[in-house]
């Protein structure tokens, strides 16, 4: 689980072509700058036709599950095709929650269920206890299973802002956890390993976050 210096790896991974899916939500600038910092070439796009040529796809996102899925709907087929081809797909925050099958958030909003992308079977539920919601701030990570996205980050801190968290059907889908009221998944991945997501924002998590973006770029170059 050791990692080389960022500079050395940046040279090694230079040239990874990453697409960041622009489906109308959030600040894409930080994740783009973060990926560039670790040596990637980034294209922000709303055109699913360019997914196939990319080395990896980032699904960012802030906001609500229903709006997120409404906006991401047009990309569902292209994302499914990418996953089937084995391309790395990285969901961040709401983008991670959308990798699962459903969310309590959309159910609460009424108007019937909203289907997630379902690359990782399971749902998302709301924190329910005495602690403040949203869970906002820096919390530490415990890596629970071996996955290259989590190389070199065990015990480090990451920046979270969220009210819901993932509950995958299979415990094997949990790569790292954090604690807030109880233990919840901070990083999840599918069985094949090419679809994964972080509940926290790597682009806002300092050096630890840049390490994760570096890990992603390394995965994309394999």
């Amino acid at each position: 689980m050791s990692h080389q210096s960022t500079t050395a790896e940046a040279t090694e991974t230079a040239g990874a072509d990453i697409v960041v899916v622009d489906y109308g939500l959030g600040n894409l600038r930080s994740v783009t700058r973060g990926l560039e910092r670790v040596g990637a070439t980034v294209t922000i796009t709303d055109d699913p036709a360019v997914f196939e040529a990319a080395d990896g796809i980032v699904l960012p996102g802030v906001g609500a599950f229903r709006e997120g899925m409404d906006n991401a709907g047009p990309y569902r087929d292209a994302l499914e095709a990418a996953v089937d081809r084995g391309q790395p797909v990285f969901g961040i925050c709401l983008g991670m929650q959308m990798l699962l099958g459903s969310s309590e958030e959309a159910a609460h909003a009424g108007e019937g269920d909203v289907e997630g992308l379902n690359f990782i079977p399971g749902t998302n539920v709301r924190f329910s206890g005495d602690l403040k919601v949203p869970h906002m701030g820096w919390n530490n990570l415990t890596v629970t299973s071996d996955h290259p996205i989590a190389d070199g980050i065990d015990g480090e801190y990451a920046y979270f802002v969220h009210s819901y968290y993932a509950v995958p059907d299979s415990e094997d889908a949990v790569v790292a956890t954090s604690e807030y009221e109880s233990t919840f998944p901070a990083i999840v991945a599918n069985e094949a390993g090419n679809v994964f997501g972080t509940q926290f924002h790597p682009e806002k998590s300092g050096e630890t976050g840049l390490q994760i973006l570096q890990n992603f770029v390394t995965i994309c170059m394999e």
Partner: protein
Amino acid sequence: MLTKRIIPCIDVDLDDDGNAAVYTGVNFENLKYTGDPVEMAKAYNAAGADEFVFLDITASADGRETMLDTVSAVADECFIPLTVGGGIRTQEDIKETLRAGADKVSINTAALERPALIEEGAKAFGSQCIVISVDARRRFDDAGEYYADVDGESCWFECTIKGGREGTGIDVVEWAIEAEERGAGELFVNSIDTDGTKDGYDIPLTKAVCDNVSTPVIASSGCGGPEDMHEVFTDANADAGLAASIFHFDEYSIEDTKAYLDEHGIPVRL
């Protein structure tokens, strides 16, 4: 475990040549030049700051363009959350500030004047990026709603505008509750009475707000050192402590502050 956040704040104005520069004041007055905003942000990022607050105090249209460029320059260098406040009055202002690279916007007077701006901002961009800032002032009369004890006297806290020069008659705690209901994702609580004094945060004020909302609260104004941060986390239950002058004038480093808090049982990111 979720940690308490230590947040340096930089007040940015234009210098005589029209460039963005950081100024630090005492009691919202007597501003003193302290440095280049991008260089300061980089240094704080390296020192382990958990977040930045960047306040545009130019309050001019000319300044605004320069400020957004400076926000972008800071955001490109620092991979930690960035809150930008000052002069944000409309949904369009929120949008362009977020687009420039801010993660959150801090809104003060404009929300007091038109509270629906909170709902509009939260709906369009998410509650997590809408921070409501208040400049509170102690009032020792019977016009308030929520009273606290300050040195044996009963007082309430009034929302002020124009850097504390004008009262609004609105009770800070009542406004905090309303702002939360309208979708504010965080509350940024400044005190006219303790700002720049370095005698400690306004604990009764911060506690009154924290006791009545479930939204995270950033305590501000009056921090003179790590002990004051400790007090506001333990006695008022604030989620984050903001400071300007103690960090800008190198009286304490972020590292020293965090080491002190860690030794005294406060969870911090080390």
